[in-house]
């Protein structure tokens, strides 16, 4: 990344971080119901990967997917309005935090059944190949998903069919509350499995937006050239618990502290300064991010509630939900 690209990536991460903070605050104010799975700490993976993708590439994410939705073109306002059950939400308030989708920009959904979307990403890649579009598909998933059958079925299918798909594991060391190391037979839950499917596997610093961008660009180029899938394991850490209900007391304080020192925004800021970008320029980016999110919060709050009749639309392609003729 050149300084301008890195600054743009930094600003995008800053917007995502602030939007998540806003989501957290709105939850505490009772304006967001259900639960949220914040991705604070994971921003560099979504933003770095997106910087390496074409605008028409497909992305599939998990319930911890605010960062992916925004990195792939969903606005903070659309996302927050969805969380706040507004008709103006990304999915008309039918999805919620766990199901942010923006099909128009190739963000083909966030899936809350662990690992379910990996075969879908393989299928989207298969479709791209059949249509000859040179698009690729990317599936982002957690370390916990690597022990699900769908993970293994998707990897094998993608490998034997040589599909243009990247599997990107966000290894934040924990599934919900259990350390992934306690329940996985190999030390690297994703990368160590790649040889079993005859595809490249690599570990990358998931808190370094430049490292992620470079690795994804390399594997994306390979996939686009027809050389098949790859498995990237991005090491990272979540700043909060698994979900809103989880204070994450099971994590050793020393471990938390060590990882918080490796905040992806701080790392990017350090890189910018090292490249000669002034602190003042970086602060301006922070200010712009703050302003964008503040405006988004107000606009989202002002959105109308959904019409209850909307509950009976959108099951079928004709818009309705009738199961009888």
């Amino acid at each position, binding site marked *: 990344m050149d300084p301008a690209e890195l600054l743009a990536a930094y600003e995008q991460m800053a917007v995502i971080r602030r939007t998540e903070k806003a989501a957290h605050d709105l939850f505490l104010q009772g304006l967001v119901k259900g639960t949220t799975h914040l991705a604070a700490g994971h921003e560099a993976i979504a933003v770095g990967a997106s910087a390496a993708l074409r605008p028409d590439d497909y992305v599939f994410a998990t319930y911890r997917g605010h960062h992916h939705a925004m990195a792939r073109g969903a606005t903070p306002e659309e996302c927050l309005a969805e969380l706040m059950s507004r008709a103006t939400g990304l999915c008309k308030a039918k999805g919620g935090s766990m199901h942010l989708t923006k099909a128009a920009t190739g963000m083909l959904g966030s899936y809350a059944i662990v690992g379910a979307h990996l*075969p879908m990403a393989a299928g989207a890649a298969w479709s791209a190949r059949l249509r000859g579009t040179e698009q690729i598909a990317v599936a982002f998933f957690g370390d916990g998903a690597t022990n699900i059958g769908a993970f293994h079925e998707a990897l094998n299918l993608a490998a034997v069919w040589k599909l243009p798909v990247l599997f990107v594991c966000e290894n934040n060391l924990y599934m919900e509350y259990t350390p992934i190391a306690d329940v996985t037979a190999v030390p690297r839950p994703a990368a160590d499995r790649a040889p079993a499917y005859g595809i490249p596997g690599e570990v990358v610093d998931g808190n370094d937006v430049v490292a992620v961008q470079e690795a994804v660009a390399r594997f994306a180029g390979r996939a686009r050239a027809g050389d098949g899938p790859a498995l990237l394991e991005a090491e990272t850490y979540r700043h909060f618990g698994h979900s809103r209900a989880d204070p994450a007391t099971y994590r050793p304080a020393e471990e938390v502290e060590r990882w918080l020192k490796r905040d992806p925004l701080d790392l990017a800021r350090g890189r910018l300064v090292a490249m000669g970008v002034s602190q003042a320029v970086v602060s301006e980016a922070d200010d712009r991010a703050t302003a964008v999110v503040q405006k988004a919060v107000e606009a989202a709050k002002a959105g109308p509630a959904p019409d209850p009749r909307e509950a009976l639309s959108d099951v079928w392609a004709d818009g309705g939900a009738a199961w009888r003729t």
Partner: protein
Amino acid sequence: MADVISYREAVAEGIAREMRRDPTVVCLGEDIGEAGGVFKTTVGLRKEFGPERVWDTPISEQAIVGAAMGAAMTGMRPVAEIMFSDFLACCWDYLANEIPKVRYMTGGQVTVPLVVRTANGGGLGFGAQHSQATENWAFTIPGLKIAAPATPADVIGMMAAAIRSDDPVVFFEHKALLATKGATPPPDHVVELGRAAVVRAGADVTLVALASMVPVALKAADVLAREGIEAEVVDLRCLVPLDMSTVLASLGRTSRLVTVEENPYQGGWGATVVSVVADEGFALLDAPVRRVAGECVPLPFADALEEEVIPTVDKVVAAVRGLAAY
């Protein structure tokens, strides 16, 4: 094309007609390519359309249906085969949680125009894990369309409608019907999903049946006719959309209702049909309703045991006789 076609051949013919018409139709499944499918329902497709449109998969039911879903979301019309309907359980997440919900939970942003085809039902002595009639599993899930044709012409016509549907369709091909034969329908024969057919007219009782139970109901009607009881037989053809107007109209003529279903009584689709009748057509009834359905056990192996469990002509005749005397 011959004038007469088997149900088995009709499956491949129905798919082939759509593949010729629409280049986005592609097939995937275990052994469907050179091998032509374990039930020989995809014979000739690989030869005509090549490996880029007819894909052999690993034994990976989740990947088959999950990949079909991803492809359907991005511009293709995949037709996925799950070899035996019992194996739908291996990819149940996709049928229960992913495919039917994605359109709704994205606020209508994404459509999933795919077909999952599968060989359903008993009668061939395959034992409990290869014989279940499972259309009632799918029937519990809002968001799936369910087709279950009983004749070769319907296989072709409903396959066309299923593949052209912008909504996901689970297409049940009945194993016990594969060898049956019927007239080859003309080119561009399409049977709209959700239109039941009155396949025999009668004034005394309505028999509502699906798939392999349609010929059972028709044979029962022949037996009953010799006793002076005229049964009207309705082939539902689809469970979703469910054509209750045809059922209610028939009931208006006969005032007596028997559902004939192969899936277990417990949770079977017949329960929904009779509950709608009780709700909306109670005044049409002159007698209680009867459900002839599978026993609530896994399907046993031996012929004699299988017959004990699955509805037979005799069981249907007995149920109707009881009602006619009511």
